[in-house]
């Protein structure tokens, strides 16, 4: 297959952070992810694109075992993080998720204050020695989430009282506050205006210097702007995976081409 060749070529340049081998996901009888093989590199932004319902979120959720919380979901195959199988019984999903953070498709702030929302992760992982440290972490995270200016005067207000787009950025801030090694972002800009979107994209670019970022997006422009690698999913299959530039300018698979040019979706 095409993508194997591309993967092999890329492996030489950067270390592989996560790699999936023959990954299958079933929701009861539904076969949602079919035999996906992919290598996600460190210090790289990888974009997942594809029509609605093709399994992008499902596959993303496999990468930090969030599918464990769905009773009917079943994952097969291997997913390696730094060479270790994350579905191995020895692996503690709690530790895994501290390393592989996630921003969900639907904003889900806790019914707590804005401050407590962001401080949640650092508190449970003991990242702050004292209140002053925590204040610093919270401010830094909110700034990275491009929401500090809007909420700095009301950190004690409930996070659930923010607008949809603000909640989305709060959730981004909450996820980066724990300093994960890999950040999975499921349509993080779906409810954001162009300015906030630009700020979040800036954040993603900044995160790339230390971490690996995977972003699901429906915006081709966004994928082209922020990502170095792009994966195209269709009906549960990983159709094509490669350099973003190559995927957008010279797709190998006709399905990829018609999706990018807007003929399927």
């Amino acid at each position: 297959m095409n993508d194997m060749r591309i993967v092999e070529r890329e492996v030489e340049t950067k270390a592989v952070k996560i790699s999936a081998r023959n990954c299958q996901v079933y929701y009861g009888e539904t076969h949602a992810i079919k035999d996906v093989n992919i290598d996600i590199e460190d210090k790289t932004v990888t974009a997942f694109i594809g029509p609605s319902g093709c399994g992008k979120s499902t596959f993303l959720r496999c990468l930090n075992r969030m599918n464990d919380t769905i009773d009917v979901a079943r994952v097969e195959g291997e997913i390696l993080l730094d060479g270790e199988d994350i579905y191995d019984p020895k692996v503690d999903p709690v530790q895994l998720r501290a390393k592989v953070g996630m921003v969900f498709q639907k904003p889900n702030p806790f019914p707590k204050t804005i401050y407590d929302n962001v401080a949640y992760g650092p508190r449970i992982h003991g990242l702050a020695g004292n209140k002053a440290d925590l204040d610093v972490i919270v401010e830094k995270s909110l700034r990275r989430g491009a929401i500090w200016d809007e909420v700095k005067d009301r950190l004690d207000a409930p996070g659930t009282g923010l607008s949809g787009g603000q909640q989305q950025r709060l959730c981004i801030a909450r996820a980066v506050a724990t300093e994960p090694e890999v950040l999975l972002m499921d349509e993080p800009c779906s409810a954001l205006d162009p300015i906030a979107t630009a700020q979040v994209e800036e954040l993603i670019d900044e995160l790339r210097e230390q971490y690996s970022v995977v972003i699901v997006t429906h915006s081709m422009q966004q994928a082209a702007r922020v990502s170095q690698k792009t994966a195209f999913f269709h009906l549960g299959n990983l159709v094509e995976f490669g350099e973003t530039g190559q995927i957008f300018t010279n797709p190998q698979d006709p399905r990829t081409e018609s999706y990018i040019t807007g003929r399927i979706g």
Partner: protein
Amino acid sequence: MPVLWIVLIVLALGGVGYMLGRRRAMASADGDVRHLHSLPTYYGSNVALLTIAPALLFMGLWLLMQPILIERQIIGLIPESAIAEGSSRSLVMSDVRRVAEGLDTAVAQGAMTPDQADSIRTEFTDVRERLGRVGVALGSNVRPEVLRAAQHYRGLQARYSAIMTVLVLAVAVVGFGYSYLQTTKDFRARNVVETGIKSLLILASTIAILTTVGIILSMLFETRNFFSQYSWTNFFFGTTWSPSFSGRGGASQLGILPLLWGTLYISVVALLVAVPIGLFAAIYMSEYAGPKMRAIAKPLIEILAGIPTIVYGLFALITVGPMLRDYFAQPLGLGESSASVMTAGVVMGIMLIPFVSSLSDDIINAVPQSMRDGSLGLGATKSETIRQVVIPAALPGVVGAILLAASRAIGETMIVVLGAGAAARISLNPFEAMTTVTVKIVSQLTGDTDFASPETLVAFALGLTLFVITLGLNVLALYIVRKYREQYE
């Protein structure tokens, strides 16, 4: 005509009205629904509503007023001489009613013809004996004045019922005619029906509110009677409860404090048992248990809720009480009694577990999964997620559930009678017998009571106090729930 028949006729008329109204609307639009202002069913409902609702409302009001009007007229007929020493007009009136009902029964069973019922005289017939034969037992021989008043009563009743039948049917027909003639294609039937339905709903809630007000007023009235005979300071601040019963000498001491103390003590023990167990069970059920486990355990816990409280009382009396005495109270030197605050509290706590657990379970399940995902996705463990996200989100509901359980505990009677005894006492020792407000309300009202002495009237003061306390709890619950809601939404 019996009321049931009237209702059926009115309903049938409404049904016919529905059909006709619909048809007339369609006819006025030349059979094309699009020319109508509203859907055809609204025209039909409008006619049905205007036929049924005013007629039935009118009948309801009439039935409320009728006995009052009749009694007004009858009571004037009873001469002073017919009122025996120590009796009163209202007692004689109730005799009249009973005899009238007896005559009705006799006619219904065929033991008398209607004419006989109207014409018998105590001078020629033993009315008491004749009524006794159809199963209506009277306390004494029927006096002529009473019999005559009863016969008059029946006459009035028949007349009023006839008038009512005519009027109700007239109202129904007028409503029918009016709304039927109103039905044209431009008539805004939908708006009228909506208003009509809204009014019915408002009426229903008004009735509920008025009933509550009525209950409170009747309690207030009797309580005022009580406080006119007994000083309120002694009632609210008295620390002794020792009523003396009818005429056996000595003044009663009716201090509420020992009863309140017992009530609160037992309720607190019950909540201490029920809240942790119920809440933990709920958390296990909703967060940890698999579907199979839940399917078995949930109904099992809920069975507890179906056990009558008297059975819990027996359990307290024969099992828990002696066990607590033998294993705790006696070895610790805290008392010899098997009836104790502990016994009643523990058993009541067991009774409350399903309340707390099934309510909390529903509330915890209502916390959206995305909330848990958010926390788990940040690397929190399951119990961290539950403690810091799920429970705070569910807290207002859980507090509501706990306060509901507290209300139940405060109002519980049977378990206390059998588990804690009937001795009013203020003591810190949980292994001593104590009692509660509800138990004393029952014991003050059982047996021969005349609702005039402070010893019986005190029951109403106790009831009202209890009501105020539970009301306070509910207000507190609302306040807490609202406060958290503001914070979280």
